[in-house]
């Protein structure tokens, strides 16, 4: 095998923080290497050095034996490195072809050769089975299509080494599977790939070899065939991690009920008839591929907008007002889907974020003046009790990692002891250690008698945490099945809108209940 890429002794410091220390790794032709590590382990920094966005303090990069000049993206591109960024580097108002062709021709040419560009793009699209429309506006593309475009951009630059930074972070399960098929195909055609991930099942299914980073250092290297999820998890986190599991709790009365809820045009996809019940001490899991109305459902229950028709009952009664203060007053705790835009105000301090939604309560203000001492004390308590690492009361919340920001949001919500909890995609983008923490807190809320509405697209998460599960497809909710009857195949069918099996199972449950009565 030919060695195409070699990183030797890379060290990078940002002030007092060491992001990478003496990192060495290599990549062979036709190989898929997974770079595994938790958030903050230094994976992205390492790849940014390789691509020339950062300059290493020590160490060097060799491509096909040649030393790569540091700090110059253009040199990296010329050497055949293609980078697919985690946050897409695309311009939404320009066409697909524009995005691909930017910077690929000599700048001072008097005329851009669009025809040649289009032909090259279409040929690549054909060769690797990555379908695109060169004239579509990027703003019209789905997330999966944007990802495809990012890969094509790299291939258009004649990349022979492709680096993908958490490529599945924004993809649905199906899209992710499609992506990995593409990657395998590309490796078979002689490209060499590095993909960065903290998701164990992806690493196991898609890579040939794994390099594990922890706190900026390489802690292990394994052939994928010779290792296991468990071993990798332990290497990555540095200790054994187990996701907590559900224990039986006493269920109470129905705290949250939806009756044929319909909402059009809000929060993206419409809701076209959703009925569900959540009891005290129970978790109802709503599983579905994103874009099927779950965001709308979460917004509805959170009080962002009223239903067009149908009824939303809180503790058996229709709330008098359908707005956010009303939802907060009704004891509905909300963990929003997008913590960065809806869950926190990035530029404000931790304490401001922690108390903002209850700022008018007598606890935190009186006569229009904020009680800073009380607010700061409450924030201190959240930081301590919920183990929000890296947070200071007066620090800006923007500086927290995703996992720690989520811990703070959980703390903010749970200290108010909500009777109903809406958790939308609570572990999206978090690493293994943080997920375990979030799950423990959600189970704790359920144990305290809260009715938990868990909206997620992660099968394992829904099965592990829920008592009952409904799938959302095309804005409608399937019949509910007990979680112990759920498996990946059945949930897959339900998410695709085939509810015959679910209906049968739900029917059994009804039958039993009638029997019992």
């Amino acid at each position: 095998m030919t060695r195409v890429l070699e990183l030797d002794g890379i060290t990078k410091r940002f002030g007092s923080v060491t992001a990478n220390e003496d990192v060495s790794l290599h990549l062979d032709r036709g190989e898929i290497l997974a770079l595994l590590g938790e958030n903050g382990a230094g994976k992205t920094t390492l790849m940014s050095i390789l691509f020339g966005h950062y300059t290493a303090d020590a160490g060097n990069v060799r491509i096909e034996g040649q030393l790569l000049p540091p700090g110059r993206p253009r040199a990296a591109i010329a050497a055949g490195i293609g980078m697919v960024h985690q946050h897409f580097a695309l311009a939404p108002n320009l066409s697909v072809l524009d995005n691909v062709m930017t910077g690929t021709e000599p700048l001072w040419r008097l005329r851009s050769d669009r025809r040649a560009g289009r032909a090259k793009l279409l040929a690549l699209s054909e060769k690797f089975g990555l379908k695109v429309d060169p004239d579509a506006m990027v703003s019209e593309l789905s997330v999966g299509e944007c990802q495809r475009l990012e890969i094509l951009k790299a291939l258009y630059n004649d990349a022979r080494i492709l680096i993908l930074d958490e490529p599945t972070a924004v993809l649905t399960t199906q899209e992710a599977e499609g992506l990995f098929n593409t990657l395998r195909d590309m490796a078979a055609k002689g490209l060499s790939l590095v993909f960065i991930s903290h998701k164990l099942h992806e690493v196991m299914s898609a890579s040939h070899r794994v390099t594990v980073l922890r706190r900026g250092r390489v802690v292990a290297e394994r052939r994928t065939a010779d290792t296991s999820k468990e071993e990798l998890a332990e290497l990555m986190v540095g200790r054994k991690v187990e996701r907590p599991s559900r224990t039986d709790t006493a269920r109470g009365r129905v705290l949250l009920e939806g009756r044929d809820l319909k909402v059009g045009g809000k929060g993206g996809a419409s809701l076209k008839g959703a009925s569900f019940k959540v009891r005290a001490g129970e978790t109802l899991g709503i599983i579905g591929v994103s874009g099927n109305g779950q965001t709308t459902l979460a917004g509805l229950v959170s009080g962002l907008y009223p239903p067009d028709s149908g009824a939303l009952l809180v503790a058996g009664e229709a709330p008098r007002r359908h707005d956010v203060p009303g939802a907060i007053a009704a004891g509905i705790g909300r963990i929003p889907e997008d913590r960065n835009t809806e869950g926190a105000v990035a530029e404000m301090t931790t304490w401001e974020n922690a108390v903002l939604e209850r700022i008018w309560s007598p606890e935190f203000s009186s006569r229009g003046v904020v009680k800073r001492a009380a607010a700061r004390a409450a924030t201190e308590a959240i930081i301590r009790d919920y183990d929000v690492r890296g947070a200071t009361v007066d620090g800006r919340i923007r500086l927290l990692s995703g996992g720690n920001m989520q811990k703070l949001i959980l703390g903010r919500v749970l200290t108010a002891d909500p009777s109903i909890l809406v958790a939308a995609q609570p572990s999206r983008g978090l690493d293994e250690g943080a997920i375990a923490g979030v799950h423990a807190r959600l189970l704790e809320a359920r144990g305290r008698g809260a009715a938990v509405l868990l909206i997620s697209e992660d099968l394992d998460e829904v099965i592990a945490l829920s008592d009952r599960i409904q799938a959302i497809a095309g804005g409608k909710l399937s019949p509910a099945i007990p979680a112990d009857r759920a498996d990946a195949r059945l949930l897959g069918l339900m998410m695709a809108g085939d509810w015959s099996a679910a209906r049968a199972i739900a029917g059994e449950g009804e039958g039993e209940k009638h029997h019992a009565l």
Partner: protein
Amino acid sequence: MSAFFDILLTIGMWEAVLRIATPLIFGTLGVLLCERVGVLNLGIEGIMSFGAMAGWLAVYSGGDLWAGMLAAALAGLMFGLLHALMTVPLGLSQHVTGLGITLFASSLSYYIFRLAVPTSSSPPTVEPFRPLPVPWLSDIPYLGPTLFNQTAPTYLALVLVGMLAWLLYRTPLGLALRMTGENPHAADAQGIDPVRLRIGTIMVGSALMAMGGAFLTLAAFNSFFPTMVQGRGWICVALVVFASWRPGRALLGALLFAFFDAYQLRLQTVVDGVPYQLFLMLPYLLSILALIVMARRARVPHALMQPYRRGER
């Protein structure tokens, strides 16, 4: 009533439209270039004033008219560099920096003017650009004397519209410019340095603004006085929005505004008993109306007013 229409039939009216539009075309193209790479340049009002002074001074002290235009362009490049250094590598507020440059450049132009002409109470004049009839074409009835009997800088402005459109939509550099204004991170990821590109573009855009100012002293009038720009720079900023950041529509917008302006000027002499100030307002009122209609569909460059720092989002 027919007097209102008679104005529209005079050659003078239409000839004035193009003349009034010329500095607006220069200025609008300048603002458009800056904003296309993502930087607002509110320095335009002052840069036009300085360009007017620099152009006039170069000619007054013996240079020829094109040397005057060149002097203005060079001054524009310098002010552009100043604005660029503050807004691009330093990432300062583009509003504040731009307004600061407007105040600075306006005052400086008057200061230099007073240094050059310390005593005179009536501003000294220069020999301005003369209309340059295009052979054959200027003989076409109506169209000829209006379109093809203009001064050289007006023809230059019209040619620039086409050149800029070609640059933006047909060349690799133009694509790089647009990408930088839409998403500088994406440009950087493709090996284009957004910082250098922004600095260069702001300089060129500012040079265009200054040439628009020089047109005032070297073609429209023949002398410099400190308040002569009279908000034309601000109109250009609005015209760019009206134009949805497209050069062709920028030309259209400039012509439309110039038409209102030329028309109200002539209405003042026709209509009695109405304060002329009301007519002065007319072009601005109509511009606001046009802006309301057009700007709703405008596609703002995505990264406008966002400073770029590598590794930060």
